[in-house]
């Protein structure tokens, strides 16, 4: 008896550790993301304040086009030479600075030096101010001279005296590298930012396309605050005047928004992990309560009250939650520090040191303890319902009817479905997420009801062998336990399937549109390049037109604008009617003719009527009114505001970013393509693609996004695996005697392992199937809800779904390994003597 007690205690410990591990992983994820974003945030704070440490006051213009956070980057306002003079009247030492993203250096290997996102600034060299220090060479004095920061020089493999190609808003131009600079404190770079500095005039032409400045820095012997107030009073409200400190704080703040998004995404995945963990904990406590039925009944018989019973289970939960939270917090700090160090190394950021923010600690303990207690609540209540008489009876796991559970499941699922529908209609993310959550819980409640028939059906696949049949029967034995174990796996698989369904449907709709309507044979477009729209020189257009086989080439210019104050995109086609033909645009009103000065053609989704006049503010800040002369139907392929050539001067680059190429029927596409590519030698980021490549490229991001989602949801799967291991280990333990009996009548070791494996695989495949079903349900609900946004048909990602099913099966096999070995090692005699 003692041996049995010890054994079951040990088994319980393993189970407690497993469920504790689930909490630990979730807490680790939560606190890790706080630690990580905190460290990165403070590092960037330091970077911004060091960049502005030598600046007393910074003057900038109000943004030319204000854009909300969700819509992307605002277009910065420009300060003119006249503005600079006005500031200089107040503070003679004022310097006009230019600093704009998008100066791409071509390295010594002939390739453009890319980044994974951080800006590549192009600007003017204003001397060793603002923390800049010339390390080598001299300042740029002539139009063809530049200096770059030391880290960039190293990356590009260039040295002082080299001829260096630089891409800006204009195609490639070649400069002589005359100097290499660094920063205060002996740094080679400020974080991950690359910098190229030209002379003032060149910087203005190449980076701004206008004579002006992005900011004016002022230093004087007055106090920064006094200087700021003086400038503010003297300049008026078209300007933003901040002390260096204020400006640094403002920059850091806008950057915080980015970090905040990152943090939210990480927390979202942590939430999924914890949600799955909840199932595992719930299952563990149910099992523990079931196993202790006799003990609990005895306590009841001896006079313990219901409250005491609930209390005893909950205390255990609190202890597990507490321990797991402490460990999870520690692990989270470790993981956060590790990732921060990795990030800093990757971005050459000066790491500000790791701290444990209060948010990490508070969230770790709240999440860890609350989740554990919530998960243990149901089993605790069940424990309190054990009748004292159970102590005297031989109670097998009583097969309680599933009616109530099933009814509750149906109600919760329906409520979830309703919330999802409402959320989609009202565009409310909260309702949508709440609905998804409720749907998961509802399906989890329904799953025991489905488990028996589903498991019986699935098991048929394995019934050709005796161990297979036994395994199948075992997995059908306790539908609640099977179901809850499977439900944990369901969540992860449902999420990836749902996202995949939406993505695939979106992609298919887009492909379908393109295939049906896109007539251009070739397309010239820029590679993905962070913060930059690659361009090509419009003087090439006539030469492209002359390439043999080319029927027509239409170039597109594009930039941000504000129409009647609302942010939008402007496009200028060199030949709008041809483009309209190539994209099969249909006229809704007026004509789709090439717009003349002051005219615009627009799609039917912008709320304009024929003959309306709209006020357009260009990216350079100029305002002009346009009259709507034509309206066409909006498609995935073609939409927005189409202007005439007069809008180009308001665009910052003033260079085409895209071109449609129509070939003659008799043309040799390969030859035409090679010829076009040859012409684009000075725009190495522009590429010529055929229809298919272009579409593949447009949809390539979808694949990457999916991959990321899958990787992050891997954690949820991992926790689900813990659950399966937990359930199987228990099955093996509970059935020691049976396994011994089977061994005694001739079941071999391998066959025993096969039996356990089949049990596991049936559970996980059941979970995977549930997940696929729920995922398809959620996905098609969203696709349905987004029908207005151009999602025309529901396309199921069969191949991926097959893959997830396969993953489910593999997960089962993996989870079965340890329990199966344990079962195979069952000592026949020991099992028979097992009390």
């Amino acid at each position, binding site marked *: 008896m003692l041996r049995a007690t010890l054994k079951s205690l040990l088994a319980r410990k393993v189970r407690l550790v497993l469920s504790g591990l689930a909490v630990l992983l979730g807490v680790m994820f939560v606190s890790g993301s706080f630690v990580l974003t905190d460290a990165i945030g403070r590092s960037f704070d330091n970077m911004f304040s060091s960049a502005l440490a030598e600046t007393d006051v910074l003057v900038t213009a109000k943004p030319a086009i204000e854009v909300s956070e969700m819509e992307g980057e605002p277009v910065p306002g420009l300060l003119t030479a006249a503005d600079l003079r006005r500031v200089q009247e107040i503070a003679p030492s004022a310097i006009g600075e230019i600093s704009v993203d998008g100066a791409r250096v071509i390295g010594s290997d002939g390739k453009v030096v890319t980044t994974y996102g951080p800006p590549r600034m192009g600007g003017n060299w204003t001397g060793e101010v603002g923390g800049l220090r010339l390390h080598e060479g001299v300042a740029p004095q002539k139009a063809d001279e530049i200096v770059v920061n030391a880290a960039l020089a190293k990356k590009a493999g260039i040295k002082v005296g080299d001829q260096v190609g630089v891409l800006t808003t204009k195609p490639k131009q070649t400069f002589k590298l005359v100097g290499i600079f660094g920063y205060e404190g002996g740094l080679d770079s400020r974080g991950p930012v690359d910098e190229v500095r030209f002379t003032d005039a060149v910087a203005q032409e190449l980076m701004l396309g206008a004579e002006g400045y992005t900011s004016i820095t002022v230093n004087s012997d007055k106090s920064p605050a006094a200087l700021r107030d003086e400038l503010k009073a003297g300049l008026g409200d078209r300007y933003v005047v901040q002390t260096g400190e204020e400006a640094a704080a403002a920059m850091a703040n806008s950057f915080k928004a980015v970090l905040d998004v990152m943090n939210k995404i990480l927390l979202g995945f942590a939430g999924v992990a914890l949600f799955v963990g909840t199932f595992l904990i719930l299952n563990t406590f149910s099992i523990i309560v079931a196993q202790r039925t006799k003990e609990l009944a005895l306590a009841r018989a001896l006079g313990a009250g219901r409250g005491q019973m609930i209390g005893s289970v909950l205390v255990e939960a609190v202890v597990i939650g507490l321990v797991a939270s402490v460990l999870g917090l520690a692990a989270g700090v470790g993981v956060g520090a590790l990732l921060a160090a990795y990030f800093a190394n990757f971005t050459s950021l000066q790491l500000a040191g790791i701290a444990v923010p209060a948010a990490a600690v508070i969230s770790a303990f709240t999440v860890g303890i609350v989740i554990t207690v919530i998960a243990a609540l149901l089993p605790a209540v069940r424990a309190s319902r054990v009748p004292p008489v159970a102590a005297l009876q031989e109670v097998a796991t009583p097969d309680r009817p599933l009616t109530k559970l099933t009814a509750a499941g149906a109600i919760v699922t329906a409520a979830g479905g309703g919330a999802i529908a409402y959320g989609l209609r009202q565009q409310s993310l909260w309702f949508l997420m709440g609905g998804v959550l409720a749907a998961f819980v509802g399906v989890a409640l329904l799953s025991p009801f489905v488990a028996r028939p589903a498991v019986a059906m699935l098991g048929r696949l394995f019934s050709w062998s005796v161990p297979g049949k036994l395994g199948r029967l075992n997995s059908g034995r306790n539908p609640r336990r099977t179901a809850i174990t499977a439900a944990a796996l369901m969540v992860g698989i449902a999420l990836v399937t749902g996202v995949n369904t939406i993505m695939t449907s979106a992609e298919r709709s887009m492909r379908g549109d393109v295939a049906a309507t896109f007539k251009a044979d070739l397309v010239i477009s820029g590679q993905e390049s962070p913060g930059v729209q690659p361009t090509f020189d419009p003087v090439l257009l006539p030469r492209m037109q002359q390439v043999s086989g080319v029927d027509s080439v239409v170039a597109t210019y594009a930039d941000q604008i504000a129409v009647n104050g609302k942010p939008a995109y402007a496009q200028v086609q060199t030949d709008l009617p041809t483009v309209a033909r190539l994209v099969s645009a249909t006229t809704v009103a007026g004509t789709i003719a090439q717009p003349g000065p002051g005219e615009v053609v627009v799609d039917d989704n912008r709320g304009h009527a024929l003959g309306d006049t709209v006020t357009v503010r260009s990216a350079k800040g100029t305002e002009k009114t346009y009259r709507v002369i034509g309206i066409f139907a909006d498609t995935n392929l073609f939409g927005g505001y189409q202007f005439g050539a007069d809008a180009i001067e308001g665009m910052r680059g003033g260079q085409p970013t895209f071109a449609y190429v129509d070939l003659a029927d008799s043309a040799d596409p390969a030859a035409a393509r090679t010829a076009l590519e040859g012409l684009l030698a000075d725009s190495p980021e522009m590429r010529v693609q055929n229809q298919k490549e272009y579409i593949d490229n447009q949809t390539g991001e979808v694949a990457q996004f999916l991959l990321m989602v899958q990787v992050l949801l891997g954690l949820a799967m991992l926790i689900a695996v813990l659950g399966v291991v937990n359930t199987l280990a228990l099955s093996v333990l509970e059935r020691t005697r049976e396994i011994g009996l089977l061994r005694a009548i001739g079941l071999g070791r391998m066959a025993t392992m096969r039996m356990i494996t089949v049990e596991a695989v049936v559970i996980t495949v059941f979970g995977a199937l549930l997940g696929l079903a729920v995922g398809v349900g959620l996905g098609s609900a969203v696709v349905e809800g987004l029908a207005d946004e151009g999602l025309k048909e529901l396309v199921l990602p069969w191949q991926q779904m097959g893959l997830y099913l396969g993953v489910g099966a593999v997960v089962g096999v993996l989870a079965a390994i340890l329990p199966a070995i344990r079962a195979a090692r069952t000592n026949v*005699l020991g099992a*028979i003597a097992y009390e």
Partner: protein
Amino acid sequence: MTLTAPVITRTAAAARAADVWKVYGSGEAQVVALRDVSVELERGRFTAIMGPSGSGKSTLMHCLAGLDAVTRGDVFVGDTKVTGLSDAGLTKLRREKVGFIFQQFNLLPTLTAEENILLPLAIAGRKPDRAWFQTVIDTVGLGDRLGHRPSQLSGGQQQRVACARALVSRPEVIFADEPTGNLDSRAGNEILTFLRRSVIEYGQTIVMVTHDANAASYADRVVFLADGRIVSSLDDPTADTVLDMLKAAAG
């Protein structure tokens, strides 16, 4: 080059122990459960093993059946030397040569009575001999209960299913450890009658451990163990002769 044919030790015994020692633990905690036990269990006979609690009855049976390894000595089941067999060898032995009836927990709760009976054959991948199956079912009298699960059967019925399971694969020898220990005398007598009949009518070899003199009286021969040794044996026992023998051993 010479070819040596494998030497097969032919014996009339269905199972045999030769100079078997079984020692549990070591040092202070050492327990000698069997001391130099040699015994032959004749083919086609019903042997009962008796003795006081702790005398080594179960141990002897486990060793004979290959469920437990002996410390010294050899064990044979039919032609097969059990000592030193690998797990695969033991599995094969269990599939082909031996059958078991335990005191309780004999059946898998997920399977019906019929499936339980046929389980050893299914595991071994053998086809049941339908006529023999029918005979066995008739012998134990389970005809109308075949579709029931163990939880729907009484303890006596469950033991009958266990008997049928042991009989159906026609093993060399059936080992039964107190098969009637948990039953009342009527159900116990029924089981013992079946075992007796299968010995007489089908020539089945059975070895049964029991505490009960009445149960032992169904056997052809009783072997008495005391303190890990075989102390005596009795042919064609009756309840009275067995009781006398036990008294003599105790006294």
